């Protein structure tokens, strides 16, 4: 059984089509990268999978079960990292701990798991700092930490390293891969950086103006894509 399946998912905003009949499926433990230009619908797709928005038509199935808008019972197994994360006006520790508190955890469990995350993302020195005083890279690592701390089955990331320096980029990518390998977290990363896609992903999807132009495993996608538009995009020749 596939882990996540999208069937003819479409969504438009006031006349503009953000997604047109997007169909694909991935297995448990896959690492999918969604690439495409800005405005091609990548973010909309993630938001629909995370249940923040509802598709106009088509279905999304998680582990065989349909998901709806909200309330959304599957949400607890999904973690999402937004492009410009909004952290809470409290310490880094609390920001990460909230995810567990929301799930009813308390006391020692929280301490152990949060500290684990702090170490994993090299945030230990920033434990007691107010999250709103962090730099962009530090904030993004906290956003990743709070999504990972409750061990989600599916992790969604929207341009997680778009404006970050190489140090932060490498930490985040390393953590993503470890999570995917060691904990079998299924990961979907939206990025417009094809090099990053190449580094990380085993499957790649290419969205162009809401249409899923190409979907396949990484090797095929980059060496011999089926669609000429894909080739054009990879080469940086695409004009939009």
């Amino acid at each position, binding site marked *: 059984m596939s882990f996540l399946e999208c069937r003819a998912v479409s969504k438009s905003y006031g006349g503009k089509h953000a997604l047109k009949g997007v169909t694909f499926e991935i297995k448990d433990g896959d690492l999918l990268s969604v690439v495409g230009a800005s405005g091609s619908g990548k973010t909309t797709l993630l938001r629909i999978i995370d249940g923040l928005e509802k598709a106009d038509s088509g279905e999304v199935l998680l582990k065989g079960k349909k998901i709806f808008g909200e309330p959304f019972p599957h949400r607890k197994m999904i973690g999402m990292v937004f492009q410009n994360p909004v952290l809470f*006006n*409290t*310490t880094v520790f*609390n920001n990460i701990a909230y995810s567990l508190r929301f799930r009813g955890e308390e006391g020692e469990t929280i301490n152990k798991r949060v500290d684990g995350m702090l170490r994993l993302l090299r945030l230990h020195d920033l434990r*007691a700092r*107010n999250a709103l005083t962090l730099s962009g890279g530090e904030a993004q690592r906290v956003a990743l930490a709070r999504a990972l701390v409750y061990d989600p089955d599916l992790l969604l990331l929207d341009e997680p390293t778009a404006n970050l320096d190489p140090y932060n980029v490498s930490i985040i990518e390393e953590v993503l891969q470890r999570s995917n390998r060691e904990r079998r977290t299924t990961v979907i990363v939206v990025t417009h950086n094809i090099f990053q896609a190449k580094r990380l992903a085993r499957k790649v999807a290419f969205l162009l103006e809401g249409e899923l132009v190409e979907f396949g495993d990484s090797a095929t996608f980059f060496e011999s894509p089926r669609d000429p538009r894909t080739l054009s995009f990879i080469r940086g020749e695409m004009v939009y």
Partner: protein
Amino acid sequence: MSSQKHNQIFAVVVIAIVVATAALAYYGWPMGPQRLIIATTTSTVDSGLLDYLKPYFDNKFNVNMTWLYLGTGQALQVAASGDADVLLVHDRVREDAFVASGNGTLRVTVMYNDFIIIGPPNDPAGIAGENATDALLKISQAGHDGTTVFVSRGDGSGTNALENRLWKAAGVNTTGALWYESAGQGMAPTIRIANEHIGYTISDRATFLTLQSTMNTTLNLVVLCENDSALLNPYGILLLNPIKYFYIKSDLATDFLLFMVSPQGQSLINNYTINGKQLFFPVYGHPETIGLPSENATVNYLNSLLKSRGLE
């Protein structure tokens, strides 16, 4: 400082404020003895007479005497609404009407003070030594010539009513006159306006003397007309209908009335002075001496009450 600590401090501060506020509610200032609310006019308050009498009354009857600072018209209105316990005003016509309407059961004349016409020391209208109506006539002429102004209470008070009667007697129509200013306030503020605008006004002697002592040389007005019988100002106390206003402190109101007409009260009124000048003159029991109708029936009744209460 960590957020945890922050929130804790914040919570402590909020709790402290809430507790303090609750404590203040219990602290509430002399709550012991019962409270009597007198609806009275600005002249009895401004003159300091009530402040002077309060300790004697409070101690003797174990009451907390308080008063509302109003004009006569307002005082009568407040009493008619049942928001005060007793009336102390100075407008015979309206007092009688109040009793006649059934809102009041009894009224008696207790004391009088007199009004004076005050104005700038150089007396532009030349009224010094005149009687009241002649003085007002001269003021209106001077005002018409633009050499002075007159400031009126304009607040429906007893003083205002007396002033209007005098204008009528003088045959002057003040409506729309440019030299006639209507303050719409109590006696003290009205005097201060006359002071600022360098004009004339009619005031009760008591308030004027009080202001003189508090304002000293900043008050630049002098007494120009006095001792005219038309300027006499009798005060009456009215008891409210205890059946219609069953919730008011009728017994405390009676205590107050008896206190004011008792020999002790009358003597206290007689002895109240400012800067050595007597302000109010006791006249209970003999209103005929200042040209008012006799009140024998009421006086006899009250005297027997005084006797039964051991206050004579």
